[in-house]
């Protein structure tokens, strides 16, 4: 018996199946089209309804839909101005200032959260009973209480418990500056600022024109990082050739910081100390209460989440990996660097980034302590003074969305790159 065709086949010869409307309901291939058309129909209906309502409402309110207000004079002042701004400038410019403030806060917050989180995550795994308990308390307390409350608490701590600038005055002041350089007051913290005797001018970059001095320093720093990469690569080459890895830490330090120090000296960098003048300290850099409250509130709160992520990431790397490395004779330090960290980072980084995203979105709570971020400028005062809530809110959402999508886009690229290869 072999695989021949069967005579009975003729009876059941394929009939051509013509399209029949009922196939829209019962046929696998057409059914999904039906469903999608139905969904499209519902969606269009909903969208049409919404758009129609918006048009009607705008007409009834006698409003137009226009972003012209962005080019009108803002009229209000902003206390924290990373770029040149005064009340005569436009709402658009005010929004830009707010945006930069949002970014500044987000970056500072992420940095603090990361440092705290990594530290706490590692300490929580420590064998030291009391330390791990203490860190657990930190993590649980911060994770389970709303961030807004933390922000308010930090705001209140700053405003209520610190001495007023006037307490620094007089012959026998009740408060004094730390190292004569840092003043902690109920209006924020004043720290020395770095000034240059030689100003190289500004880099003309449209609305944001950074000082050339800082651009130069940044450039040198970046160059240093690249040079350091080269040094490490060189060390690896030497190791590959001879088996011995040359010591690089002093070279790295030199390359990373040497040129920067040189530039600082060349430009005549000096510190400007805050000084009590009139009502307030003048000079130096003023870290306002609002910034500090947001920074501490968001940073410490998010740090608690990151601690859990870091802990989980390290625990996710099975004990077997450490044992295998030990059994091969790798010392604990090298085991950490060559075996555990590269693997743990893959586990840690995606949730870490989504924490960064959350933190960035939470900067919009700045309103609670009067931090002039994008939401407070564009989404707050501008909307209020111009009455353009529809346009303002849409713009605001668009900007946040853009930030979020950028961050998560970067994360996807990272994920794709480090994905473990499997069968």
């Amino acid at each position, binding site marked *: 018996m072999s695989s021949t065709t069967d005579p009975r086949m003729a009876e059941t010869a394929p009939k051509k199946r013509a399209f029949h409307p009922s196939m829209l309901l019962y046929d696998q291939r057409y059914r999904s089209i039906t469903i999608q058309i139905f969904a499209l129909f519902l969606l269009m209906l909903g969208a049409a309804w919404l758009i129609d309502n918006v048009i009607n409402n705008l007409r009834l309110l006698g409003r137009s839909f226009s972003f012209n207000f962005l080019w009108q004079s803002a009229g209000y002042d902003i206390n924290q101005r990373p770029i040149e701004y005064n009340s005569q400038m436009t709402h658009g410019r005010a929004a830009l200032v707010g945006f930069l403030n949002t970014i500044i806060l987000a970056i500072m917050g992420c940095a603090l959260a990361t440092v705290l989180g990594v530290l706490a995550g590692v300490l929580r795994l420590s064998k030291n009973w009391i330390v791990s308990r203490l860190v657990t308390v930190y993590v649980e307390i911060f994770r389970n209480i709303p961030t807004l409350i933390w922000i308010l608490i930090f705001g209140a701590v700053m405003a209520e418990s610190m001495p007023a600038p006037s307490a620094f005055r007089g012959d026998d002041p009740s408060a004094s500056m730390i190292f004569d350089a840092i003043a902690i007051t109920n209006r924020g913290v004043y720290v020395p600022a770095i000034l240059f005797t030689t100003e190289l001018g500004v880099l003309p970059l449209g609305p944001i024109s950074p000082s050339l001095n800082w651009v130069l320093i940044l450039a040198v720093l970046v160059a240093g990082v690249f040079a350091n990469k080269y040094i490490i690569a060189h060390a690896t080459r030497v190791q590959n050739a001879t088996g011995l890895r040359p010591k690089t830490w002093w070279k790295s330090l030199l390359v990373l910081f040497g040129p920067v120090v040189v530039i600082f000296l060349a430009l005549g960098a000096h510190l400007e100390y805050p000084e009590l003048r009139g009502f307030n300290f003048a000079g130096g850099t003023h870290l306002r209460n609002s910034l500090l409250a947001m920074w501490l509130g968001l940073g410490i709160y998010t740090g608690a989440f990151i601690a859990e992520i870091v802990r989980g990431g390290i625990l996710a790397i099975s004990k077997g990996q450490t044992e295998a490395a030990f059994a091969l004779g790798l010392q604990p330090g090298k085991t950490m660097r060559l075996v555990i960290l590269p693997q743990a980072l893959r586990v840690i980084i995606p949730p870490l980034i989504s924490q960064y995203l959350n933190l960035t979105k939470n900067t919009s709570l700045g309103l609670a302590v009067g931090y002039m971020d994008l939401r407070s400028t564009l989404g707050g005062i501008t909307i209020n003074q111009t009455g353009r809530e529809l346009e303002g809110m849409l713009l605001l959402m668009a900007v946040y969305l853009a930030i979020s999508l950028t961050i998560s886009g970067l994360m996807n690229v990272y994920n794709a790159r480090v994905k473990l*290869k499997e069968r």
Partner: protein
Amino acid sequence: MTEIQLDPGIDRKIDTSAMKVTDEVAIQITGMNKWYGSFHVLRDINMTVNRGERIVICGPSGSGKSTLIRCINRLEEHQAGQIIVDGTELSGDLKNIDKVRSEVGMVFQHFNLFPHLTILENCTLAPIWVRKVPKREAEETAMHFLEKVKIPEQANKFPGQLSGGQQQRVAIARSLCMKPRIMLFDEPTSALDPEMIKEVLDTMIALAEEGMTMLCVTHEMGFAQAVANRVIFMDQGQIVEQNEPREFFNNPQSDRTKLFLSQILGH
């Protein structure tokens, strides 16, 4: 007692020419005791392993087999007694530990390959960072051992892309790359599918044929009969019986051993 059948996998003739037991002591364990908390897991272990010996350790689950061999490269700390490996006594001294670990290779039940490194990188990592061997040379050695375990063509893949048997062979190659003088195996085949067990046992036999000193926790009795020169039976943290394999299987002395053998060979 039924006559034990060899594992069907071990069908080729085994070349015992290099499998000579010398007089030189490789591992010397004296009066060793270990506790986990207050649980006495290893009790008064005394044992000498000469260079070239191939020892199989068996015993019921929880009897302390793994713990014993993990003490030998100090993955576990013992609390009393003495372990001397290749003349180096294991104590808290970190230098001694490093020295012993780089002389003793270990293969785990679950392979424990590093998933973020390629097969080749897995094999060269320790030679480069511990033995300070130039990379080129380390790679040559690695390829040599990968050929020996018959998977040179997988060198640039990642562990996740290999089958279990292949992974275990890589794990063996990785240990061999450190040119250890002693190899420890902790149930190297028990996480594998039957077809793959053969691949791994073959590799281990080849190793034995070259005269490697081996301690192997395993329940592959075919392997024990064919390769081991001594079988140690443990129970409740103690060495209950040891003997050369033929005697051990056909003429067990202690009741516990009999019971154990009837269980693993009976069905």
